[in-house]
């Protein structure tokens, strides 16, 4: 599921409430019937900002979640190596983040989150700071990784094409004060080819429908 809307409408706030970082002023958040108080277990979070630990190598960044859970030794090594392979980061295992590009750092952040198999993945504009090319690459990878595990993903973005590329369902929010304006089911087949799908008429039709609604919010009163 992707949430789109103008900046300041509260997209990130929704995500932070889901992640237990912000307490809702009214109402309550439940995950599988359990109310959220504090950071819930089984939830992974990928920030827009670079949150890779600069003092740890790629390998030890990805190992963090396993380390916290007490997964050590050969088991830890195996899972980290697998994640590094999936992210195409072979050869950079012992590099410090300062030597990597923004796209590679975000890959590390993504794999660091996925390596502990979260049931729910919260992503707050994770590719917002990347250039178009890198972004497309990571879209492809995310779709591929997701296809294997099929976790629930809540993805915040202000980029409509990104939302359509990735999501099954798109929530459009209004300008501040943010409300849900529309929930749209993306009827595009999977697996998706991030490049080719954009040339299809279905894609253009979906884009047009949502843009018609979202555009009003950008236009102002």
């Amino acid at each position, binding site marked *: 599921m992707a949430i789109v809307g103008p900046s300041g409408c509260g997209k990130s706030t929704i995500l932070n409430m889901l992640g237990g970082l912000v307490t809702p002023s009214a109402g309550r958040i439940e995950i599988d019937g359990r109310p959220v108080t504090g950071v819930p277990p089984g939830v*992974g979070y990928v920030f827009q*900002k670079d*949150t890779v*630990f600069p*003092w740890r190598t790629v390998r030890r960044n990805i190992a*963090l979640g396993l380390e916290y859970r007490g997964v050590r030794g050969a088991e830890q090594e195996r899972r980290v190596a697998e994640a590094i392979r999936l992210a195409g980061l072979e050869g950079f295992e012992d590099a410090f983040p*300062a030597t990597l590009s923004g796209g590679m750092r975000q890959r590390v952040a993504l794999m660091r989150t996925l390596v502990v198999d979260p049931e729910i993945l919260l992503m707050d504009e994770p590719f917002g700071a990347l250039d178009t090319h890198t972004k497309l690459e990571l879209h492809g990878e995310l779709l591929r990784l997701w296809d294997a595990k099929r976790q629930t993903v809540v993805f915040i973005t202000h980029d409509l094409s990104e939302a359509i590329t990735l999501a099954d369902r798109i929530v459009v929010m209004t300008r501040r004060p943010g409300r849900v304006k529309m929930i749209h089911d993306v009827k595009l087949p999977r697996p998706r080819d991030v490049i080719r799908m954009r040339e299809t008429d279905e894609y253009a039709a979906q884009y047009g429908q949502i843009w018609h609604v979202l555009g009003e919010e950008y236009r102002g009163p």
Partner: protein
Amino acid sequence: MSREGRRVLAWQVGILVVLLGAWEWLTGIKAVARMPGLYWIDPFFISRPSAIAERFVHLMSGEVRLTLGAMALSTIQSTLCGFVVGVSTGFVAGLVLGRNDGLARICGPYIVAFNSLPRIALVPLVTMIFGFGLLAKIVLAWTIVFFIVFFNTFQGARSVDPDLIHSARFLGAGERQIMRTVVIPSALAWTFASLTPSISFALIGVVVGEFLGGESGGGLGYLIIQSLGTLNAADMMVALLTLGVIGIVMALGIRQVEMRLLRWRPEYRSRT
């Protein structure tokens, strides 16, 4: 060594030779020919390299009761002790107060008040309590080093990026794990910035302690005060030069440790 490095070294050695040569030469010119005791620049006050070298050999030899080596050792020992104790206590206190707002607010005024005391004013009190020996010197060095390291670590612990803490929490970290894997590494960069000034200040604390400490405290500070008593500029220069060498060696040592522990920072990697 690179070409650039060799050129820098050549200049450094050249400047040293010129300075020492000028010093030796200028203090040898008499104001009035064949009149003893009247110099343009009087070696009585600033001595001369040849005289200093002579005293250096003499002070190193076994002919004196307290050799230069023994005095230097005493100074180094107290400096390192004061430094280690000051850094470790300052670091822990900085972390604890840095991560605990309530406690920081309560302790804040006391720390600022104590830190604004000129440390030299404490020397008589410390001497009264801890005597003239090693312990007093260590305590003096500690009173300075503690605060430098404390304030830096405190800032470092406060400025830890909250998103790094959040991401650790999402990865399943408990409070202690957050401390160990996020707060401490992040604060360390700040702490290290305070170590080079800390070792110099530790040396200051120790030498001031030795001024008052007398022979039982030993050390190069004692040699300086003793030379003042005998108006012996050459001995004083020996002590000062030795202090300078000790200061440089200690600062280089810290730099090595720093480069090793902070090798994740780009500005350190390029220089290895």
